[in-house]
Structures are given as C-alpha cells and as structure tokens.
C-alpha cells in the first residue's frame, strides 16, 4: 500500500477524480476518503451522491460543508417501527431545514430521495423554486404535504424526470396538480401517483403521457378508470413499468377489447402493479404481458380470488420479484413454486390481519416455495403458523437468503406441530444462510434463538425482535455476536439494563437501537447518555400533551416505555417535540 500510495500522489487531481468516478457505492467512496488527505479532498469535491441513513446523525450545514458539489441526496427520518404506530405523530424527521440550507448555499440539487420523513407543502414549494436543474423526487412512506405541494413541483421543475410517491399519506386538495405540468414538459421518465386518493384530471394525464416520449414508468391511482388506462397504453406502448388504477369493467364491452389489444402492443412491460379495484374477469387482458414480467405486485388487490391468482401466475414464468396477499393460499404458493423458477424475492402480506379464522398461508406454502425456487434470496412472509421442521427444510433448500422476515399473526405462537419454541428453526436459518443481512423473527422464542443468531449471523445488519426472549442474556448474545449489526429494534421483550449497558461502545458502531415495552429503566438510559456523548438517547413518552404530567413522576427506577438511541455528530436535536426527551 505504501508504494502504491506514493505513486498515486504523483497523479494530478483530475486523474484521481476520473478514477473515483468509477467508484460509485457509498461505502466504497467513504473508504476512499479515509486513505489520505489528498484523496479526501479530491473525493470531497467530486462527490455528487450522498446517502444519510439517519437525518439526525448530521445536520444540513455539515453536509454542505463536507460535500459542496452535492447533487443527489438520500435521507431517512423516522425509525422502522414508526411504520407500525409505535412512534407518536410529530416526532420529527422534517425535511424543510435540509431544503432551506441547500437552497441558501446554492447547491445544485438534482435528486432528492426521502424515506419516512415529514414533507410540508412549504418544503416542496421551496424545493421547486430553488433548484433549476431538479430532476428527481422520490418520497417513500412520507407524509405532511398536500396536492398543492405537488402542483408546485409540477409547475416549476422544468426538467423533471421522476416523481415517485410510494405509500405516502397525502391530503388531496381537489386541485389539479397534474394539469400544472406545462405543455412544454416532455421530460418525464417516471410518474407514480398510485397512493393519491383523489380524482385527477384524466384529460391532462393523457396529454402528459402522450407528449413524454421517454416515459418508462407510470403508476396510476384508484381514480383512473380502465377506459383511460386503455387510452394511455395506446399513447405509451414503450412503458417498462405499469401500475394500473381501477381495473374493473364489463369484460364484454368494447373498451375491454380495446384494452386487450393495447396491452398486446406493450412489449416492454417488465414490472406490473396496481389492480387497486379489480374485477377478476378482467384479468385475462393482462395475460399477454405476463410472460415477460420480472416484477409483479398484487398486494393491493384483495379482490382477486385465489384461483384467479393461480391462473394469472401460471403465465408468469420469468418473475423475479412477487408481492402478493395471503389469499393466494398454500396451494397458490405451490403454483408459484412450480412456475416461477427465477423467483428471487417473495412477499406475502396478510389480507385479514386481525381475522382469527381462515388460515391463509402456513409453513407448507413456505416450504413449497423454498423447494421450487432455487434463486430465492429475500422473503417477507406473514403466516398463521410455522414449524421448526419447515424452517429447517427451508434453510437447507435456500442457503442464499440475504433477507429473511417471518411474521406470525399471533406473535408468540409456538411450533404448530410440537408446541416448542421456534428457536431451532430460526437457528437453522442463520446457520445456513451465511450472507444474511436482515432478519425478523416471530413466534414463541427463548434466549436460545439469540444464542444462535449471535453465533452464526456474522453478516447481520438489521434485526427485528418482538415478544421474544427470556432474559438479558438474549440481547447480550446478539450485541456480542453480531459484529456487523447496524440497526436493532426490539419491542415487548424482557431485556433490561444489564444488557443495555454491557457494551456501550457498541452503539457507536450502529446506526440506531429501538427498545419499547422492555425492561430498561430511566436511570440506565441516563447512565448510557452520560457515558456516551456521541449518542442521542431519546425517551419518548406516550402522552403527546407535553412532558409535564408523565415526566415529572418518572423516577430513575421506572421502566421507560420507548427509547430510541442513535449515534450522531451533532448532539441533541433542536426540533424535538415536548414528549421527546433527549438525555
């Protein structure tokens, strides 16, 4: 290294910069900047894409100082468990300060990708007006804005290529945001407004699609009827990715025939989703494109019965990514196993989350998939029941899992055949899948499963635990064993102070730790916060009505209901609401 380093120092900076252009991954670029001062500087001024996994780990000023030529920013706000109502509203994660700072510093922002952040109309308006070359806005599980904000983006971003809204909570203001795209806008490549609840101006939509000749990805919302879909497909047969809106019509009508013909002409569609409102008898229109599909998301379509699903899937031999509801049943999963030999990622969501009845999918479906799909590497599976034997078989069949997330509808259900905990099953998974980076466990579990995880899950980066374990030992096994752990989230498990405080330095190697309804006390959290100044230890109270009532009576010996801690370079955040206390 010494020899090559001194050789490299004789290269002019332009050469270094050119070489670094080929280094694209964030981790690699981070590593590059650590080599020496000159590399640090060259890298610093040539870095265009930055990813910040926790928006409170740094602040906008530091970001801009560090990477002044920033063009593309990716930010994540709330922690994962916020998705499941475990985080009170208004906890934080506002994007406005970031946009404001970049605007003031004249950053040439072109792309912004946000996940679990609060986005106000004000921020969208500022964004739209501040960055003349702005091209791409992707919002995943965000909230806080209305269609007025979208109107601002549509009106002002002259070179907009991508507007992708995934599962956002948007207030629909009955405006005509779609009509705000000027006639001169022809640059759109990707438009996804499937999560919007309100009507859109379909005439404006058709015209927009017709003039954007480079449009590759289009996902419509509920309000766009089948007749309009048909017209759109005639304008845009070049689409790669299509999300339908409403898909229900009289299959005997002329419109439906026209749709079938339009679909036949769409030779490039590889990814398909939607069916937000579906009449099963209209599904055959889709069969012609099924053979070339690599991604299919039917998880928003509870209206498709399992036999129709099976028929559809039989046409999809090239599927690599499949998201469905458990209405497919174990039998339907058998069809998937027989048909989809290229399958890499499967997600099976619950169609009836609180229903006690109809066991939709069980361990049988999972075993069938593992046996039939040799390329499977990522799974999210909501099921009624599971067995150790099944998990052991799955582990044997699929040693290549990168992500394995199992969710039993009853969080502490034991092995359905033996009534034992599911420790052995998950143990087999971590032992077999050496490349596992993400794991969610559920079902009846003791400390033993964590012993296995600590022992075998060497590459594990994210672990989700709920209602599991017997004692601090469980958590200790994980903290001591999983060297690459970045995110640990735990709820309703008997882990307490001893585990929390055993290796405080560990948390600086991680992005964050979430513990709710566990056994940690306020005193222990205070100790941790004191010893580790580069962590923010947040105590989040239930009552949003100010810290007064709940907090005053909270003693050091009292259990803390929700604790979220994360490493940070910038100390306690300044925008924390009343019910969040940073120790």
């Amino acid at each position: 290294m010494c020899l090559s380093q001194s050789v490299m120092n004789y290269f002019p900076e332009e050469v270094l910069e050119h070489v670094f252009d080929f280094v694209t991954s964030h981790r690699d670029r981070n590593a590059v900047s650590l080599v020496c001062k000159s590399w640090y500087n060259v890298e610093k001024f040539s870095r265009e894409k930055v990813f910040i996994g926790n928006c409170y780990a740094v602040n906008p000023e530091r970001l801009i100082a560090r990477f002044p030529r920033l063009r593309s920013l990716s930010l994540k706000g709330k922690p994962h468990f916020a998705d499941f109502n475990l985080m009170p509203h208004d906890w934080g994660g506002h994007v406005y300060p970031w946009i404001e700072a970049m605007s003031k510093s004249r950053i040439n922002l072109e792309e912004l990708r946000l996940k679990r952040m609060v986005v106000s109309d004000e921020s969208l308006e500022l964004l739209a007006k501040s960055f003349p070359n702005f091209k791409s806005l992707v919002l995943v599980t965000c909230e806080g804005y209305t269609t007025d904000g979208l109107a601002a983006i549509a009106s002002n971003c002259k070179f907009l290529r991508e507007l992708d809204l995934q599962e956002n909570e948007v207030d629909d203001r009955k405006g005509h945001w779609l009509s705000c795209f000027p006639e001169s806008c022809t640059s759109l490549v990707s438009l996804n407004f499937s999560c919007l609840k309100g009507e859109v101006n379909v005439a404006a939509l058709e015209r927009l699609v017709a003039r954007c000749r480079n449009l590759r990805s289009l996902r419509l919302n509920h309000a766009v009827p089948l007749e309009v879909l048909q017209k759109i497909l005639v304008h845009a047969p070049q689409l790669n990715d299509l999300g339908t809106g409403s898909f229900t019509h009289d299959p005997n009508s002329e419109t439906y025939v026209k749709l079938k013909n339009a679909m036949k002409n769409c030779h490039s569609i590889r990814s398909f989703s939607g069916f937000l409102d579906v009449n099963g008898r209209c599904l055959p229109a889709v069969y012609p494109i099924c053979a070339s599909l690599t991604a299919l998301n039917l998880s928003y379509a509870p209206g498709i019965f399992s036999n129709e699903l099976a028929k559809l899937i039989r046409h999809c031999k090239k599927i690599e990514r499949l998201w469905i509801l458990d209405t497919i049943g174990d039998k339907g999963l058998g069809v998937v196993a027989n048909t989809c030999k290229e399958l890499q990622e499967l997600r099976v969501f619950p169609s009836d989350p609180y229903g006690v009845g109809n066991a939709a999918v069980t361990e049988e479906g999972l075993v069938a998939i593992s046996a039939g799909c040799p390329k499977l590497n990522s799974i999210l599976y909501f099921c009624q029941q599971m067995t150790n034997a099944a998990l052991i078989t799955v582990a044997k069949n699929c040693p290549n899992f990168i992500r394995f997330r199992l969710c039993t509808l009853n969080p502490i259900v034991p092995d359905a055949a033996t009534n034992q905990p599911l420790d052995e099953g998950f143990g087999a998974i971590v032992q077999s899948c050496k490349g596992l980076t993400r794991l969610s466990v559920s079902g009846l579990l003791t400390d033993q499963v964590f012993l296995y995880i600590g022992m075998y899950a060497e590459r594990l980066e994210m672990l989700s635990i709920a209602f599991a374990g017997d004692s601090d030992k469980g958590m200790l096994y994980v903290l001591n064993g999983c060297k690459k752990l970045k995110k640990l989230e735990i709820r309703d498990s008997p882990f307490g102070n001893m585990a929390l405080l055993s290796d405080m330095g560990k948390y600086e190697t991680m992005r964050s730790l979430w513990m709710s309804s566990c056994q940690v006390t306020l005193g222990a959290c205070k100790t941790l916060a004191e010893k580790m100044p580069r962590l923010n230890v947040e105590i989040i109270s239930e009552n949003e009505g100010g810290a007064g009532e709940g907090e005053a009576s909270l003693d050091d010996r009292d259990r803390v209901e929700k604790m979220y801690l994360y490493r940070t370079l910038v100390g306690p955040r300044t925008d924390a609401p009343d019910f969040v206390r940073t120790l």
Partner: protein
Amino acid sequence: MDSDLNLKATELRLGLPGTTDAISPPKNNKRSSPDSDSAPSPPKAQIVGWPPIRSYRKNNLAEAESGSFVKVSMDGAPYLRKIDLKVYNGYLELLEGLEKMFKLTIGEYSEREGYKGSEYAPAYEDKDGDLMLVGDVPWEMFESSCKKLRIMKASDARGLGCAV
C-alpha cells in the same frame, strides 16, 4: 400475556431481570393440555402495531373490504344506482332508502316467507358471487359481505322467498 402452554421454561416473563427462577432451555416436549388442540388463539386485545404492516396497507385493505358504496340494479331499469351502505343503520333504513330511490314498495321481511306479498325482492351478491336474499344475516355481516344489490321482480324471486 395469555399462554395456555405448560412449558414453564419458555414462558414469556416480563419480570425484572435478575429475579429468581433459573432459565434453562426447554428440554422436553410437554404437550399442552388437551383443551388447546390448535395453536393458542391470538391475544384477546389487539396489540398495537401487530402484525407489523404499514397503515397505508391496512387502510387499503379496510377500504376494499368494507368499501361501503355498492351498486344497485333494478330489473328493467336502464341504468344502475349507487348507495353508501354506511349511511344506513340497519335493514329497515336500507329498504326505506331503496323504496324511495326506485319509487317502489318492498314490503316486510320474514324469515319464512322472504318478501312475500310485495312486487319486488331485494337480493345481493356476496363475496363468493352468490345471489342472496337481503335480511337473513345480521346487518354487520351483510354490510361486510355485500358487493352488489339487485332489486328483483318478485316473480323471479320465488326461489329466494322460501326459507327451508
């Protein structure tokens, strides 16, 4: 937490760590008592955030399942109407609403005779696609399973009118 299992060693305990009771991995399969021959029923109270699915998804399912606007067709009428089932508190109100909307009389329901004696009989298509007589099941069950309403001429509805 409810647990009918006899496996003490694996019992979920929320006591403070350090309390007595040595915890050892379960050695042996003590089958649970005979009264639980299937997996223990889900905890009685709904747990916050379980199963872990995003509200967006939950809302999507809820809307689809209890999508309260349903189409109403009447035999012989040129076009259909739509009504919001949520607006009604029960069968009486629903039937009154239908009577007003289509300017007809439906008459009284009886389990035995259906809507015998009136010109029209209200029927609905349920989740399985079957045509059912309105009024047989509890209102809530009807609300969640009704996909479409159909006001049939009594002459066609003879088969529906008789309870077995």
